[in-house]
């Protein structure tokens, strides 16, 4: 075990994967000698050479097209998109290619080795184009897996899980926590399962669900709520697609209440999907409407980012309203 921040944990995951299998490659803009603008790929080029860790030209659609080809060939590419906000030039390659490679070929070919890493989320004064949470766009695409870690231990285990998963996986990293989140991380190879949510705290009155950086916000809100005598069950969804509706439904059977929170805007956000599925499964158990606490339906703002974001106070208020309904 070593004390690491999230970037160090991600770097350790990449290092572990590259050491174990020479087919694992890391590339993207500034990923090479510089180690990425956030330094997630630090020292990997020095350690594994320029052929396996390298800079690409500044072209996201090219990075993912290249990665798709590499994965189809049998390599295990880990492609970095510098900010999730800049993933959209690669939307076609991800949605029409990565996601459909296996299905359209009748399993003759697949890009299961592909992992796409991208820092997402707000709270860093990044404005419109360094703050977005685009998971819902991709959640509408069968064939992809989408994973978001909440802390360094989860980041290493889930990233290794994603790299070894035989399906193309988007790995969105909460950049606000890159250095802020610190914890004990095993030095060896360990893989956390994809498609499984984790109950991080048990409780009886209400279920509070989120992922990534929002888990920290939930913890603060829950601390306030517990002081009011409300027993909260907290779930980290971890994998957005395919998502673990069973764990969530089982929790709601018990608590009868659900608050879902994410940074992305309300309309069309993944909380809507969760709410629809859970009301279908738990209708007769629900004590109050399922609440969504999310970013507003605006482009991501700058100066008023605090007002925009679903912070702990808003989540706390939603917990209160739900319990008092």
């Amino acid at each position: 075990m070593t004390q690491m921040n999230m970037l160090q944990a991600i770097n350790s995951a990449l290092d572990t994967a590259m050491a174990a299998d020479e087919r694992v490659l890391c590339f993207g803009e500034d990923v090479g000698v510089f180690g990425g603008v956030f330094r997630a790929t630090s020292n990997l080029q020095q350690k594994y050479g320029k052929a396996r860790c390298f800079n690409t030209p500044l072209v996201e659609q090219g990075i993912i097209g290249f990665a798709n080809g590499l994965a189809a060939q049998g390599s295990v590419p880990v492609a970095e998109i510098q900010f999730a906000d800049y993933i959209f030039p690669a939307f076609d390659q991800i949605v029409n290619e990565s996601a459909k490679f296996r299905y359209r070929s009748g399993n003759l070919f697949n890009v299961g080795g592909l992992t796409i890493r991208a820092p997402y989320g707000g709270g860093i004064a990044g404005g419109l184009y360094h703050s977005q949470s685009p998971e819902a766009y991709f959640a509408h695409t069968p064939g992809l897996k989408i994973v978001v870690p909440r802390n360094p231990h989860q980041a290493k285990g889930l990233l290794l899980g994603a790299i070894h998963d035989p399906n193309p996986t988007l790995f969105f990293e909460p950049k606000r926590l890159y250095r802020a989140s610190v914890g004990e991380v095993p030095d060896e190879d360990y893989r956390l399962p994809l498609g499984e949510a984790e109950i991080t705290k048990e409780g009886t009155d209400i279920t509070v669900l989120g992922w990534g950086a929002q888990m920290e916000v939930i913890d603060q809100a829950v601390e306030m709520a517990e002081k009011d005598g409300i027993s909260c069950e907290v779930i980290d969804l971890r994998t957005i697609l395919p998502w673990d509706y069973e764990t969530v439904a089982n929790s709601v059977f018990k608590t009868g209440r659900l608050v879902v929170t994410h940074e992305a805007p309300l309309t069309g956000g993944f909380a809507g999907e969760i709410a629809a599925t859970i009301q279908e499964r738990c209708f007769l158990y629900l004590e109050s409407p399922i609440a969504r606490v999310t970013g507003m339906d605006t482009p991501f703002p700058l100066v008023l980012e605090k007002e925009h974001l679903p912070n702990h106070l808003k989540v706390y208020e939603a917990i209160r309203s739900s319990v008092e309904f």
Partner: protein
Amino acid sequence: MTTTKPRVVHSPKFTDGAEFRIPTFKLLKEDGSLYKSAKAPDLDKEKALRIYRTMVTTRILDERMLAAQRQGRLSFYMQCTGEEAAVIGSAAALDDNDMIMAQYREQGALAYRGFTIDEFMNQLFGNELDYGKGRQMPVHYGSSKLNYMTISSPLATQIPQATGYAYGQKLAGEGHCTITYFGEGAASEGDFHAALNMAAVQRVPVIFLCRNNGYAISTPATEQFAADGVAPRAYGYKMDVIRVDGNDILAVHEATKAARQLAVEHNRPVLIEAMTYRLAAHSSSDDPSGYRSKDEEAAWREKDPILRMRLWLESKKWWSEADDKELQETMRREVLETMKRAQKRPPPPLESLVTDVYDEVPPALAEQFQKLKVHIRKYPEAYPKSAEHAKGGA
């Protein structure tokens, strides 16, 4: 910053690249004889006949299947007609282990590798033997054993994938390369530029073969780009480039052979622009009379690549009119018989609707599938293709 030392001038001097006029490589004249100064190609009889038979097979397959589409037997079809030399001549210059990542009009390359008429038909009719499990429209072929990547409809997406695939081949160090095909229209997509630039920077063993066939559906090449074709773009990437008469089988073969050598032995990606003409419509849903003249088509029919190769083969005494007649008749019969067989085969099983989305069917999808089966059992007459399959299981 540039990769070469800048030459300094002291007056504002612009250049539009007009000084670079790219020549067209030709060996074979329209009458089937070699140009006077052309070097006789290194192509033995066996290979030449394999190429020719494939060209004729492709032409016949295309004629018959378009007719089948017109009769309503098939939903859709795309012909390679007029471009057989560009496609088959280049594929024939490769090693069979090299990867082919095509656009959609390159069935000739697949036929050259040995894809059988049966295999073509199974895909076209989307029956239970289709490797693609009836999931894609006709002509979206693929074969892992023949190293032919399954076709994807979105244009140009295969080009950067070819760069990536070839990068993996370079790391594997087994001396293989990738060829990717696309039209001059697809070359306007961003993916084209990304792919060529990345290949040049990383020195990847990939061959980019542009079939400049004059039209992107109805849009003529003159409305696709202002430049002298696609070839000059290679200068911008510092990539080797050659323009070749795409209807000249010998020139296409020779150019691709040399390109393969550059790619595999020197890690130099190559752009080949094959100048050709799409003699047929874009697809069975297109009608070229709305955008081009009969005279233009007739002029290109004179340059038919199959006719040109036949004349050359005959001049070498490797082929005769009788041989040709026999091949034509045999292939027509085979195509017809195989089509009837393929059409009668049952559709893929209902399960193929939900398999291969992921390596395993996720729980939510498994639930959707169970619901669907229950529904089909309730209304079997509405789902004749799957009513039988829906009976099994829970």
